[in-house]
């Protein structure tokens, strides 16, 4: 079952690579991400309450947590591929890329999906690392797809910083493997997550402390947590909108999924104190850096990228709390943030397409000049800033509640202060972009193909925020996987 899930994007990648890009390939991509989403849902129903599913003779494994991540990947991939059609049409129409180049883009996107699915479904932590490294390699060309000076610079920085960061993670994985080998009676699959969890209490604490520190630093680079976050604003602002939506929406959280997997083992081996302090330090650092850099932003895509750093900081702080409520809220936040950030990046891509510039003060009064586009951007910002009825409000509230219960009250208050500063910064930037007089030109309507999926995404995010009854059981099952 799992191998078919992987095969869908891979086969679509091969198919769309063959011929130069046509709309059919675009819709094929949409079909494949829909397939991933449906696969995720089927997997979730199959896994919740029952034992984990395994496939491809032991290499792949899916429990509630990975099923949830597959759903997240599916949802955001659906949004991104739908918008991808519009993006490629416009690129080809404006002569910035040829059909062949667009076909390469489509293949790489599907490859990107496949690598993320592999990372999430891998049973073996080594295979997971290989998959995460593969995502970096595949997305480098996607970041540089617009082949301008700045996108080349962004992709260079992206691959250099990320591969060094990921190398640290590999060192961490090796050390965990070393600790696993030194446990008497280890099985052949010592690096499998299940066997590691089975014997986590016997792992050598010294080695595990060093390993987990390297894991958080290494995978933290891919999550965009400070101090290795500097590639994120450049990569996400230069990449094409659908790619930056995918990266900001779900790639960061797939890397965080890896940290969560290791956190389970580290909690077992070292007790909760060390992982908690490490995650709290990293998350508060990210929040402070994101807050300071958001204050004087002049480019709205970079503003959204820094917003991702902030939300990853919040998720890390939530994971540091570690109780079942905290992890469930973290997972809901991952989904909510993925959708909201995806919609916002796609809208900013549309704004860049129609306005021509990504400078905040050269794009004034969007609500008056382009009501539909401005409206979606406004509601996206509202969702991202944690207002009800969107799901980010519920997840942030419950993460803070869990942090207070666990005794991390002071850290929660610090995060609230950073969020208040960020709220002020985003509000002033948002004001320049959204509010203002229309001037002489008549308001321009956005085509339905663009607006409908984005509005659908926002409505979905609001629906999850209001009731989330279908996800409730899945969230709690996934939370129990992490919080023992």
């Amino acid at each position, binding site marked *: 079952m799992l191998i078919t899930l992987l095969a869908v994007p891979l086969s679509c990648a091969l198919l769309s690579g063959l011929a130069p890009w046509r709309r059919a390939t675009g819709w094929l991509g949409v079909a494949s991400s829909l397939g991933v989403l449906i696969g995720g849902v089927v997997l979730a129903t199959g896994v919740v309450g029952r034992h984990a599913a395994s496939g491809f003779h032991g290499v792949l494994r899916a429990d509630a947590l990975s099923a949830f991540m597959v759903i997240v990947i599916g949802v955001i991939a659906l949004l991104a591929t739908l918008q991808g059609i519009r993006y490629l049409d416009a690129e080809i129409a404006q002569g910035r890329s040829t059909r062949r180049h667009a076909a390469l883009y489509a293949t790489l996107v599907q490859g990107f999906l496949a690598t993320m699915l592999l990372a999430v479904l891998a049973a073996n932590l080594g295979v997971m690392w290989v998959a995460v490294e593969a995502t970096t390699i595949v997305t480098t060309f996607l970041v540089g797809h617009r082949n301008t000076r700045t996108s080349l610079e962004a992709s260079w920085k992206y691959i250099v910083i990320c591969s060094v960061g990921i190398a640290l993670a590999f060192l961490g994985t090796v050390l965990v493997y070393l600790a696993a080998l030194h446990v008497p009676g280890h099985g052949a699959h010592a690096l499998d997550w299940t066997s590691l969890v089975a014997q986590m209490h016997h792992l050598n604490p010294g080695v595990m402390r060093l390993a987990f520190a390297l894991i958080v630093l290494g995978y933290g680079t891919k999550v965009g947590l400070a101090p290795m976050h500097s590639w994120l604003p450049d990569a996400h602002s230069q990449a094409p909108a659908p790619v930056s939506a995918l990266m900001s929406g779900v790639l960061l959280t797939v890397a965080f999924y890896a940290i969560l997997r290791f956190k389970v083992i580290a909690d077992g081996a070292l007790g909760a104190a060390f992982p908690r302090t490490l995650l709290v330090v990293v998350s508060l650092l990210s929040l402070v850096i994101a807050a300071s850099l958001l204050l*004087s932003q002049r480019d709205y895509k970079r503003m959204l990228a820094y917003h991702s750093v902030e939300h990853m900081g919040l998720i890390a702080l939530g994971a540091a709390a570690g109780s079942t409520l905290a992890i469930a809220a973290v997972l*809901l936040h991952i989904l909510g943030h993925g959708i909201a950030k995806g919609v916002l990046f796609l809208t900013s891509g549309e704004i860049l397409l129609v306005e021509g510039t990504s400078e905040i003060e050269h794009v004034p*009064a969007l609500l008056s000049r382009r009501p539909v586009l401005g409206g979606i951007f406004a509601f996206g910002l509202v969702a991202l800033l944690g207002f*009800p009825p969107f799901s980010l409000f519920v997840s942030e509230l419950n993460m803070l509640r869990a942090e207070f219960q666990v005794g991390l*009250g002071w850290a929660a208050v610090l995060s609230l202060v950073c969020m208040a500063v960020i709220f002020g910064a985003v*509000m002033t930037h948002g004001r320049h972009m959204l509010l*203002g007089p229309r001037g002489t030109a008549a308001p321009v309507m956005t085509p339905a193909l663009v607006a409908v999926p984005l509005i659908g995404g926002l409505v979905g995010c609001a629906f999850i925020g209001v009731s989330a009854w279908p996800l409730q059981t899945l969230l709690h099952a996934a939370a129990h996987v992490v919080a023992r």
Partner: protein
Amino acid sequence: MTAGSLVVIGAALGAGAGIAGAAMPKRSRAAAAAVLIWAACALEATTAVRVLATGHDVALHTGKLLPFTGINLVLTPLGALFVLLVALVAVPATLFGIGYARHAMDSRSAASAYPVFVTVMLLVPAAASVATFMVLWELMALVSLALVLVDHSRRAAARSAGTWYAVLTHVGAAAILTAFLILAAHSHGQTFSDLELHARAMAPDLRALVFLLALVGFGSKAGAVPFHVWLPKAHAEAPSPVSALMSGAMVALGIYGVVLVGDVLLGGGPMWWWLVVLVLGAASALYGSLHAANNQDLKRLLAYSTTDNIGLVLLALGASGVFNAIGHPRLGALSLVAALVILLNHALFKGALFLTTGSVQVAAGTRDLDDLGGLLRRMPQTGALFLVAAASICALPPLNGFVGEWLLFQSLLHGAHLGNTAGDIAIPIAVAALALTAGLTVAAFVKAAGIGFLGRPRSTGAEAATEVPATMRAGAGLLVASCVVAGVVPMVVVSSVGRAVRAVLPHTGARSLVRGVNLQLVGMKGALAPTILALAMTVAVVAAVALRRVASRRPASRVSEAWGCGRELVTARMQYTATSFAEPVQRVFDDVLRPVRDLDVSHVAESRYMVESATYRLTVEDRVELTLYLPVIRAVRRWGQAARRLQPGSVHRYLIYGLTALVVTLVAVAVLA
């Protein structure tokens, strides 16, 4: 039909009104939404009245909505009182909105946001858990922000007001959330009943932190002084029915929050808590009334007077807490009754004032007092309504403002000789603040009514003003009528407030505090006979008119030129303007206000001694904003500029960040091992 389902149906109707506001065509949009809002208000109000009458709470819980926590609503008598307050302001404001929609609030987003705003405010007093309260609170903030930004495409001031409002409300909400979460951390659940149960066992300094955080959060929503900066900006830019609702009902929910955390959840506290509230109240009252007396924009004047009245409410609340803390529960209950009566009356007359100001803005096209004048002749009903509402805010006897001030004065008077040194010093200061505020409010509203409605029109807009449509007058009229009723027969208001207070402060004994047709204070020597007073005043006026008609032989009256020192020509420019009217008061309080005076004289080209024209501008700025908020904003902006050096663009710098992080981690791990 349980009471709980009434609340749910009311909420559903409100939401339906929101959708109707968005979907219906422009012409009938406001009317359709209004009908649904009235139905929602009616349902919520009946539930509230039932709760107040029987004293039993109405509870409602659903796990399906709001993941992880579910929604739970419990309508306590205190909450019911505030639901009634919101409904009392919302129904007339919506009626006013129907006529007003043709001029200002005609956009689809405003028509759909307004009903949601009313519905959410009806539900906030019923929230009974941290999650439900915060959802409704943030939703109220979001929807009211949308309403403040209705005119964002027309005026830059609306845009900056929106930003100020959003940021300060968010900071307030963060303070409230922290307070609730500290309470929730010390109790197993997150419902208010759990919080109340475990709050007593918390450490005193933690309880003090929770109270101060709640005071900051709810004080900023109520508009108490250091946090009031958004109030004049947001109210001046919001459409009038929205300003009426914000100033009447939303600000009251701030006070509800302080009472909820202070008295209900924490169950009172040491005396210094409430002395802080008392001092905050006195400062707000003085500062608000001073700025109201010196402001020329009618809506900003009303907004500052909201800060002033909220100051009085906090004064009474502080006094109530002090009396409870030094062991006089009966007196504490009386001052809490005084606080809530002032709040309820304020909601009524401030709503009426904002609605009539809206009519003036629609008719005369401006709300700057220096451009108005002579409106009483051109808009007789609106003018009369404004005058009566202004009389009631100045606490003149037959109207409702007077009852509130009397109750507050009585509670302070009877608290003066309790032998507690802090009380003995605080009470006279509080009475002085109350009195100076009353004096300055009279100054502000005589200016507003006199300059705005009497004399000659000072601009073509005021000249051409005509009476506004019937629905607008009816809306304002409804509120003014309720002011008169609450003034002449205050027992209706005071008894229901008494019931709510008895539910909040249980140990004041079963007997009602205030009894009989006239307000006889039980257990204390103090009585007021408002109905007889009103009767006596009408009789006296009739007698005086009769006296004048009988004594004077010739009933006809002749119209003639007013005295202009012998000169024929008397123009509008010879009249006092709002600035000159307030000049004596402003000169007396010069060192507090420190107004900015700039006088630029342009000389004739040929010689320096011949003056071609001289313009004199005097502006009274908000000192709190200048000294507290602007430095913070400048500091944050400098921090932002400095932080840009973190991301200089060189890949080497980023890699060095990574290397230092790696080295630091390795050193830490090595040291730990």
